[in-house]
């Protein structure tokens, strides 16, 4: 079992119960959640937060952190706006031990200076490579760049690609898209191909004919897609109508279960591979998934299978590992948490994502593996494993740098 899954009888610290501190009254640990819970991005914020909650509900049922301390979430709505996030951060920072979720790159960066002055730890809810080297941040999962690199590796080795293949990409014009582009650029260097064409689009675009025409015109044989579901649906729909049939590889957030029960499903089955982590939804051979499904059924029966749900669940689990370390060190104060974070070793997620080597920011090593899926409407989440947990040489050697 991974961190926190020991449940009862946790090791506890040698120094006895940690003294109460901000956000910890001796029995309950309060954790902050800053997430867009209303507005257009709530479609991500809600399942993420539900994932946080399912983990902690299950943990509390088993006794709590280190078997003794219940966890309570303080949720605040950020509307995905940096200024609101700053305000909400100020609202709850005096009540919590740490933040188990801050959603969005810009909102996270907006509170980062304060996290540093306040010595606060927070788990950002995005797979940005930016986070890996930030001491005050607790990232989980393999960054987007890793997903792209592994996807390219698969395409080159088993997917029929060569370095002369026309490899293109289509990205959303924001930080998420930039991460996808970075990954592909890195891969291009490693595998010796040039990116034949890059198309950018703004989310909410209504008609993608131009982009699809351009990709088709450039003769793209493979297109790596960094998108979110409604745009991805339209993109694939347009491609299908235009009879454009490249190999599509898409980043995990591009996919939603609805796409496996839509008119474009047959097209996706023929052309598309989704790059994500872990395993198929409901795969009970993987402990992490088995637990997740069981706990979701118990604590969030109305929740649909969702990547973001799993992501939030993993975040909560990583945070639990930090908290248990802090309890072990006998200090749940902010200093104590930061100290615990620095001393934290490898945390296992039981196969939901690969193990993450935490510790001091310079020494962290995020998971380097990805899983490739194909679309299959018969599966609960509509995805079937094509290649489980691969981690390419290129991904393993990818270096994470500190942000400027």
């Amino acid at each position, binding site marked *: 079992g991974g961190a926190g899954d020991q449940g009862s009888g946790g090791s506890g610290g040698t120094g006895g119960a940690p003294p109460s501190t901000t956000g910890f009254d001796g029995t309950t640990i309060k954790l902050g959640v800053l997430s867009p819970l209303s507005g257009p991005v*709530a479609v991500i914020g809600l399942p993420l937060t539900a994932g946080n909650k399912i983990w902690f509900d299950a943990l509390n049922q088993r006794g709590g952190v280190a078997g003794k301390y219940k966890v309570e979430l303080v949720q605040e709505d950020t509307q995905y706006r940096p200024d609101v996030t700053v305000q909400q951060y100020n609202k709850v920072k005096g009540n919590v031990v740490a933040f188990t979720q801050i959603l969005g790159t810009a909102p996270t960066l907006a509170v980062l200076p304060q996290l540093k002055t306040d010595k606060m730890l927070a788990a950002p809810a995005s797979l940005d490579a930016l986070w890996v080297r930030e001491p005050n941040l607790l990232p989980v999962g393999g960054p987007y760049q890793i997903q792209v690199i592994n996807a390219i590796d698969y395409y080159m080795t088993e997917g029929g690609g060569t370095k002369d293949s026309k490899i293109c990409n289509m990205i959303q014009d924001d930080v998420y898209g930039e991460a996808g582009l970075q990954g592909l650029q890195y891969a291009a260097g490693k595998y010796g191909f040039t990116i034949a064409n890059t198309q950018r689009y703004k989310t909410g675009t209504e008609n993608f*004919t131009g982009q699809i025409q351009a990709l088709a015109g450039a003769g793209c044989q493979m297109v790596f897609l960094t998108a979110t579901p409604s*745009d991805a649906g*339209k993109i694939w729909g347009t491609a*299908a*109508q235009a009879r454009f049939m490249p190999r599509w590889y898409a980043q995990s957030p591009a996919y939603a279960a609805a796409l496996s029960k839509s*008119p474009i499903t047959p097209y996706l089955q023929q052309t598309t591979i989704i790059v994500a982590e872990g395993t198929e939804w409901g795969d009970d051979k993987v402990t992490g998934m088995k637990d997740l499904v069981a706990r979701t059924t118990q604590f969030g029966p109305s929740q649909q299978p969702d990547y973001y749900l799993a992501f939030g669940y993993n975040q909560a689990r990583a945070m639990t590992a930090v908290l248990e370390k802090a309890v072990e060190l006998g200090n749940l104060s902010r200093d104590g948490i930061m100290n615990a974070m620095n001393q934290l070793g490898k945390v296992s997620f039981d196969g939901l994502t690969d193990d993450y080597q935490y510790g001091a920011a310079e020494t962290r090593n995020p998971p380097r593996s990805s899983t490739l899926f194909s679309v299959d409407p018969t599966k609960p989440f509509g995805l079937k494993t094509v290649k489980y947990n691969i981690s390419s040489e290129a991904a393993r050697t990818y270096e994470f740098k500190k942000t400027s």
Partner: protein
Amino acid sequence: MTAFLQNCFAGLALGSTYALVALGFVVIFKSTGVINFAQGGLLALGAYLGYTFSNNLVLAFGIAILLACLAAALVGAGFERIVLRRMVGQPPFAVIMITIGLLFILEPVITAIWGFDNLQVRNPWNINTVEVGGLVFGVKDLWTIGLTAAVVVGFFLFFKFSPLGLAMRVTAFDPEAALAQGISAKKVYAVSWAIAAALAALAGIAMAAGPGGLSPSIGFIALAAFPAMIVGGMDSPAGAVLGGLVIGLAEALTRGYQDQLFSWAGDNVSIIVPYLLMIVILLIRPYGLLGTKDVRRV
């Protein structure tokens, strides 16, 4: 050449959607003299209603569209009845702000009912295509263009020939003088809100029937339709259509030739092309292509 024509067709389809939304703006502007910022919200509402009629109640798609338009019209008229009627004779700024307030209300209500998840609307168009001479036309796009054309003709006749059309126009110019002619401002306002909402619903469903499915951010298209309305002239239904098509074509073609012609201007120039075009056109014609000039005499 095929690529060019294909892009043109995409532009027309996109332009039709813009035209429908812009028409909704125009109708309300013409009769009340305000820009209705809630149009995007009504569009989303219409689309979700269409979803409910088509998916949950399993009605034929045509019927679902009709019912959704009707229901949206009721909601639009209801807004007018409950809120906007009280604002007759008040400064237009306050009224515009109220439409913004309505947008703020609509959004959470919609997500409270239908949630945030992407939904697929059951519809007969799907991603079916028709191929003519090497060009591929999406069935949905063809329908959108066709429906827009029908609506536009209806509008033209309505405004030009029906007394209510004239009544709507004069009420915007001078509500009090219109009242003195026995024109019921209440009726005029209610009807224009109903029409605008129905148009929004139609546009909404047409969009939601695509492979992208339906999500709460669907209403954003209303922003993209602003340039369409302005380019055509804010008070001209014909202008809305013309503007919609011009903007749609411009956007699609810039997008299509981004790599060849516009890479110097940064990625994704097509997004701002509608706005740039709008600025250029307004500098030449300050009241849009077909808008009415303000009449001022000293």
